[in-house]
């Protein structure tokens, strides 16, 4: 039985802010809506940026993608700040107990030397890729104008920092928090041939100017091949090497990737469907970058799961791209 407590209701003058009412009608709005639509400055900027005098502040031409209204891009997760940190707080709690468990039971330190070495060479250097992703998403958050778009990238930026930190902590578990394993792992990233195509790719992404090109390459193409390759295929492969316990420490990444596809898929679909120009531009970028991403991951696949696994993830990506009207240059969906 539920008891209904009577409360006085007071007649309001209006139900929501005018900008929200213009979009959704004058009715009570959701927290997501009141937090995510039309917050940004859009007109009458006073001075041109010294760092980009050809364009204004909040200039829509920072990407060549054209949208009638960027607020067509929304977040299927309905994340505004509070919903975002609430969700991540739960995820980090699970990660925390997994790390504590591995630490207490010495699940990593008891691994054979060779396996530990493999983790430092093949898994931990991905923290550098995460740092690149963090920088790219922070740039996009500063360049994209619509709040719905900018905030998803800010959340992605902090997520990537967090995941880089979890990867770093794997090394810290191995070296007993001395940093020695992190130093060792970084030498692979800098010097090991296996990582050089990837490091070059990441450095190349850091000089992309067009923020939508950047989100496509970073958040769709690179993540789209890398996450399934590393956190599904290589994860299984590590299990075969006797390092199945590491899986506990990368659960966050698997959950994260599953969730992130929801907003990235929705974003490229909306943007591609807006007009032919957009779709053609997206296709040109896919053609230009997808094979480079594939090639950057090849040495890692070859050293671990074999190329078949990478081809499989490439096929998965091409299915996702196809739903947005785009064609992968590699395996066809």
């Amino acid at each position, binding site marked *: 039985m539920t008891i209904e407590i009577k409360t006085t209701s*007071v007649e309001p003058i209006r139900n929501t802010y005018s900008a929200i009412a213009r979009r959704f009608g004058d009715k009570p709005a959701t927290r997501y809506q009141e937090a995510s639509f039309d917050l940004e400055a859009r007109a009458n900027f006073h*001075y041109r940026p010294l760092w980009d005098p050809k364009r204004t*502040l909040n200039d829509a031409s920072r990407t060549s993608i054209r949208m009638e209204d960027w607020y067509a891009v929304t977040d299927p997760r309905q994340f505004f*700040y509070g919903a975002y940190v*609430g969700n991540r707080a739960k995820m980090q709690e699970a990660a925390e107990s997994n790390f504590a468990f591995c630490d207490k039971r010495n699940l990593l330190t008891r691994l054979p030397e060779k396996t530990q070495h493999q983790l430092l060479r093949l898994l931990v250097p991905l923290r550098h890729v995460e740092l690149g992703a963090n920088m790219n998403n922070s740039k996009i958050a500063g360049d994209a104008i619509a709040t719905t778009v900018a905030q998803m990238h800010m959340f992605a930026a902090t997520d990537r920092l967090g995941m880089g930190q979890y990867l770093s902590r794997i090394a810290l578990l191995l070296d007993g928090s001395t*940093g020695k394993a992190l130093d060792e792992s970084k030498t692979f990233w800098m010097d090991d041939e296996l990582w050089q195509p990837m490091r*070059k790719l990441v450095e190349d992404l850091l000089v992309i100017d067009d923020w939508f090109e950047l989100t496509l390459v970073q958040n769709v193409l690179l993540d789209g091949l890398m996450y399934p390759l590393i956190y599904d295929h290589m994860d299984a492969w590590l299990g075969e090497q006797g390092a199945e316990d590491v899986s506990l420490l990368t659960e966050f990444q698997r959950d994260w990737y599953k969730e992130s596809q929801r907003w990235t898929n929705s974003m490229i679909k909306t943007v591609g469907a807006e007009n032919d120009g957009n779709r053609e531009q997206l296709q040109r970028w896919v053609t230009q970058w997808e094979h480079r991403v594939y090639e950057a991951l090849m040495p890692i696949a070859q050293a671990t799961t074999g190329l078949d696994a990478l081809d499989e993830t490439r096929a998965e990506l091409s299915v996702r791209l196809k739903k947005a009207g785009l064609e992968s240059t590699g395996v066809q969906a």
Partner: protein
Amino acid sequence: MAIKNKKLNLKDKYQYLTRDMAWEPTYQKKEDIYPDEQFEGIKITDWSQWEDPFRLTMDAYWKYQAEKEKKLYAIFDAFAQNNGHQNISDARYVNALKLFLSGVSPLEYAAFQGYARVGRQFSGAGARVACQLQAIDELRHSQTQQHAMSHYNKHFNGLHDASHQHDRVWFLSVPKSFFDDARSAGPFEFLTAISFSFEYVLTNLLFVPFMSGAAYNGDMATVTFGFSAQSDEARHMTLGLEVIKFILEQHEDNVPIIQRWIDKWFWRGFRLLSLVGMMMDYMLPNKVMSWSEAWEVYYEQNGGALFKDLERYGIRPPKYQDVANAAKDHVSHQAWSTFYQYSQATNFHTWMPEEEEMAWLSEKYPETFDKYYRARFEHWDKEHKQGRRFYNNTLPQLCQVCQIPVMFTEKDDPTVFSHRQIKHEGERYHFCSDGCCDIFKNEPEKYIQAWLPVHQIYQGNCGGADVPTVVEKYYHINLGVDNLEYHGSPDHERWLDIKGLKPLKSSSAKKSAA
């Protein structure tokens, strides 16, 4: 890996979890990855000298922030359900919230954008992470403020179209141009302007008035936000101090550049705070402290100690600090007088203070209130009672830099405007003060671009040839509802109805619903 070296201490561990993730690039040139670090003339010899202002890994950030958000939203929900808007001291108070939502909240969003950008621009990874965390905090502030004000917007006028108005309304170009100035500057100036001058030196003069004002006036939603943002602000302040010390220590050539930015941003910040001063002295039915007292404590004392501390870097207190100190007994009265006569074009109401408020003002401003301002107010009050509520139908001269009407007075003579003017490339420009005039002279090519609202109205760029049309069509200020005198306004009528003092006139009820 059985051989254990020394366990990392907290500082080194945090650096391993942040800046050690970065590396020296070899496939791309560093200056192509970080193209904006050079042009301001700031020399950074060694980013590794950067001291982390706080050590917060992402997992800890998510956890603490989520706990804060949970509590905050529980209170927002209870506030709305119990119609907490009826518990405020008086409906005049809500005008402070109108000013806050249209003037301050959009700056939180601009800060999010600005920090996201500098969180990419710096080549020091430690500094990037600190800026990114501030970026996402500022996103939080802008969004929780929308939610905190959401219920007020339903029951009071003038809060309904804040970001639209921020881009357009004449007095909102004061905060807008302030942040546009910072965001269009380079990354080091942005941090000196916002993290140091704004978030460190002047922050208490913005937040204490609004948040304590809420506490003194029964506004549970706003005060809860204020409490919740306090620990964010503590981080932001630490970043501000760390930034300035770091840049100053990096190279002696940085000192004069930083000094110029401190001079500029002190003055711009001080001008912006005129709006807060008038809010504090006039818009809060229950007073917290006078603007003069706030300035004395938070600037003259605290700021004095800070600049004493910075002496060892070769930094002196901001130029024209003496003018600002002397102005503390005038600015709030001058600003309120200005808004009183132009509230046909604002999204909030104005009114003349009641007799006991005037007594309070006399007490708090013994040297100035009775001498310069009381008579003016009594005159306007009398005019109003005789059916001649004063509105000034001639638009004011704006300052080219701060964009406030040229209404401030000479340091030694409060009866004379401190109007300045100069010619630059054949054009004439006007200023409210020497402080603004100097800022212009340092970067004229920047300030000649300003979108001055009064000029834009005269140029016909604001959707109408007369003020009421501009106000209604371009500003989205509902005529006779959002603007004008408080007494007799729909807000006033509704408030009397809520308090059982007078039933709502159906005509005004309809008008406010329109």
